[in-house]
């Protein structure tokens, strides 16, 4: 493994994980900047196509949380 930070694309459920990410900010926690969040209404909305598209666009990892 190299030292390169992986690019992470994440899909967060509006009701839980997205709120948790907000709370991490309110609590002034810190984490690396190499993550981009797309808010979805529920992980039920998640489609395999989104994951494949993300990987094709150069994401090293796709994180779905909900």
């Amino acid at each position, binding site marked *: 493994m190299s030292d390169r930070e992986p690019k992470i694309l994440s899909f967060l459920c509006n009701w839980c994980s997205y709120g948790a990410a*907000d*709370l*991490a*900010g309110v609590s*002034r926690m*810190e984490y690396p900047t190499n993550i*981009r*969040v797309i808010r979805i*209404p529920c992980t039920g909305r998640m489609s395999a196509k989104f994951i494949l598209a993300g990987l094709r666009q150069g994401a090293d990892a796709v994180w779905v949380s909900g």
Partner: protein
Amino acid sequence: MITFKLNGQTVQGEEGQYLLQVAENYGVYIPTLCNHKALEPAGMCRLCTVELFDGRRTKFVTACNYPIWEGMEVQTDTELVHEGRKLIVEMLLARCPDVPVIQELAKKYGIEKPRFETEDNTCILCGLCTRVCEKMGNSAITLTSRGLDLKVDTPFHLQTDICQGCGACAFLCPTGHITLDKINELITTRQPEKIKSEYDVGLKGRKPIYVPYPQAVPNTPAIDRDVCMHFKTGGCQICADICPVNAIDHTMEDETVELNVGSVILAPGFQPYDPSKLDFYNYNHPNVITSMEMERMLSASGPTGGHLVRLSDHQEPKKIAWLQCVGSRDMNRCNNAYCSSVCCMYAIKEAVIAKEHAGDDLDCSIFFMDMRTPGKDFEKFYEDAKTKSGVNFVRSRIHTINPVADTDELELRYVTENGEPVTDRFDLVVLSIGLEIAPELIELSQKLGIELTPGNFCDTKTFSPVSTSKEGIFACGAFQGPKDIPQSVIDSSAAAAAAAEVIAKARNTRTKEKEVVPERNIIGERPKIGVFVCRCGINIAGVVDVPAVVEYAKGLPYVDFVDENLFSCSQDTQDNMSAIIAEKELNRIVVAACTPKTHEPLFQETLINAGLNKYLFEMTNIRNQDSWVHKNNPELATEKAKDLVRMAVAKVARMQPLEESELPINHTAMVVGGGISGMAAAKSLADQGFETHLIEKSDHLGGQGVNLYHTAKGESVSENLDKLIESVRQHDLIHLHLNTEIQNVDGFVGNFQTTLSENGKEEQLEHGAAVLATGAVPYIPTEYGYGEDPRILTSLELDKKFNENEAGLEKINDAAFIQCVGSREPGRMYCSRVCCTHSIENALELKRRNPEMNVYILYRDIRTYGEKEYLYKQARQEGVIFIRYSLDDKPQVEVKKDGISITVTDHILNRPIELSVDLLTLATAIIPSADEKLANFFKVPMNEDGFFIERHAKLGPAEFATDGVYLCGMAHYPKPIDESIAQAKAAASRAVTLLSQDSIHSSGTIAEVDPTKCASCGVCVSVCPYSAPSFAEEGRFAGKAQINPALCKGCGLCVASCRSGAIHLKGFDTDQIMSQIFEMDEAI
């Protein structure tokens, strides 16, 4: 405006500004040690020296206190300036060789060792401390002596009470010369203490100006007048100087506001018991903490960030003990005879979470008297804690906590159930403190003239559980008795209903119509995107380079307008944004600011006010998920903000105006079940002015209530029940349907059509809401010889004998009760909640009829929670004998001629004993009616025991996830009359929030079927948790799926599972999400 040249660049500043301020605004770095934006500059450290050309000659000035003037030319980094600064740093290093800030500066200027003789000072005489002390209005310290002896000190080197110990000097000191300890030792004669954070129960400090806790609503800082320096000295006011929107006004005073109201609700809560009064617990030891402190320690937002440590040495504990009933069930040491109801459950929860945090090696023991987990799903949690999490439960009340000398450990001594004495050591002991009423509250109650119970809780009656003794004043939550969150939430809705019942006629008399701006049609227009980037004061702009994000956004496709706001959410900015949107005819808006979870509705309102459809909007989160979490990485945070804005712009360009369909609401309610809960719900609905149909399958009202004798408070059930039945029968707005079954239910929230069969005759009922109160039945035992002998009864059969005043009861010599018959055992792993209290009340009734009678209660844990504990105490005082048995050694019952023989292992003697009784009462389980047909009609779920599952165990305890359907009473979980009535009122209260509206709006972000693509596979119909999709029955697209906008919650489950791509989720459609993903290739 003054224009001048800074390093060759033309810059502008305002009149009166100093050079350093302007340089900072333009991002030009000038080093300084003695400057602070809250204080007037003094030019003490000389590090900020720069070169100034005044048109004729060059000179050196200190930038911090040099006012700017038109046409001047300044160089901040010439060789001469650099040489000058280097000399200053070298001299500072010689004076303070061990100060890290100076060492770092020296390194920067390439100085390894000063050429001058070194001293061991730590003060650089910058004067920040003396200036801030003056600013604070104290002037306790100053620069004393002269020349080489110049130093910071108090006058005459004497400690003084002028110093308030505010610590501002230590806070600002750049070298660490002044510390809080030094202030205590050398400066102040007062004994200043750190300000403790109330939220973190003193485990952490806080500032005099503070946000009480991260989720506080409103999330704005407050000033604590008792500790704020301004209110002590008249000085400081730094917060007001710094606040960019001038929000702070120290002259504001408390106002007396008079309100004219029809009803009052008291919800003042409880205070946690303070264990410091009990010296034998050694609460002053750092490793003896309260359960409240433990809660904070386990919280990710707590003082240790969720890392579990003991406080003495911050090491991870290996063994933790919880001591139950501290400040509860205790007459001798604290006068709180009641049970605090919640501590058993929270102790188990804390132990399980502690093990989750620290791993399986952590040893957790809970020392208890009776394990009281009578709430819904609590018993299962208790069982799992024992069997799956491996928490130890020890039945023993610990008397003393002994610190072990020369260690940080604590010693507990106790006796096991087998009678063996044990001495054990723990790293951390948690006191499970109880709930009590604050003295101020007792005073308030006296002022209001409301009666209190012996435990100082608000006194209420069983049949009016939220009404105080004073008409028009209602109470809810722990003020009415110690209780947990679900019960408090039920109570609060119930109090709202009760308060509304008395003023129902005034409903809607003070509503105002809102002016509506007509919506502009943008169909066919090319996207014209407006982007607003918020600075959020310094919250965003302090990390993210907002002007750079603005510049970047200007270059994105379809973007027509970009601006930055200081605070996008302030009212004037909102108005300004509306005006810009209208004036520039923007048709898509992006706001890059905080989180859409709190602010999306606000900005959507801005769009509406500008005549734009509110769904032509996208919000992106550059605060909570960017600037706040990447504060040490401003460059990458700025790049992330740009990416997020680009992704939002890509998505918003694809947004279309969405419609919200309007659904009319039928104002009639239907209540299913004519027991106490159903009647109470119907009466509350009708009292609030809503026509209500009460459906009962039998030929009479009252449900199980007709079998009951007395309440736990000693009131007659039949008297109160008769009154309730009469008021229901007499009510103009209640339509009673006896002998009625429900045949079918169609429709949805606000528009249900129910088919009733009343005495075999079919009838259609249209209603807007439904309350399910289908109740429960007693378990009919097959054990303990039930049915073999007339002297073996169930609890309800004994009540019947009391009600009928059957002769011979007073002649009984020996009577016994067996608890948990059919409850708390495999197959029915729940506590029936009411039986302990019921049996004890009946035992006392037998004693009243024959004081000489021997009464035995065979139990597993006595669960007289709250103030029901008094009954338990009274029973013991009156000689009722309690014998505990365990699940694996149940009592044996044999019917004999001369009596019923019961063999049970006595928990004290630890050997079997035989009782011979004339009356055996079995406290049987409560089993839900579990009407599956009804559950299917309303599409509401049931748990494995057959109880209905509420929307949310804590926050939605009287409603279903299905809109427009509510629940109460024993169909939810076994509960006594007062709790049933409270939940009935709560269900009514929740229903009224719907019924009182003329129409509701569905969301615009819902799923829609393209019927030409639909293959009629039915996957969407089966996966939707809200029953929104169905097959169209008629029309052109009969047989194809359709989605009811009223039921759709917009989760997108059907969209993801549709095989033919026929379903679109408006606002989160595939092309919209894909467009965000496609913007990824540049990202990161």
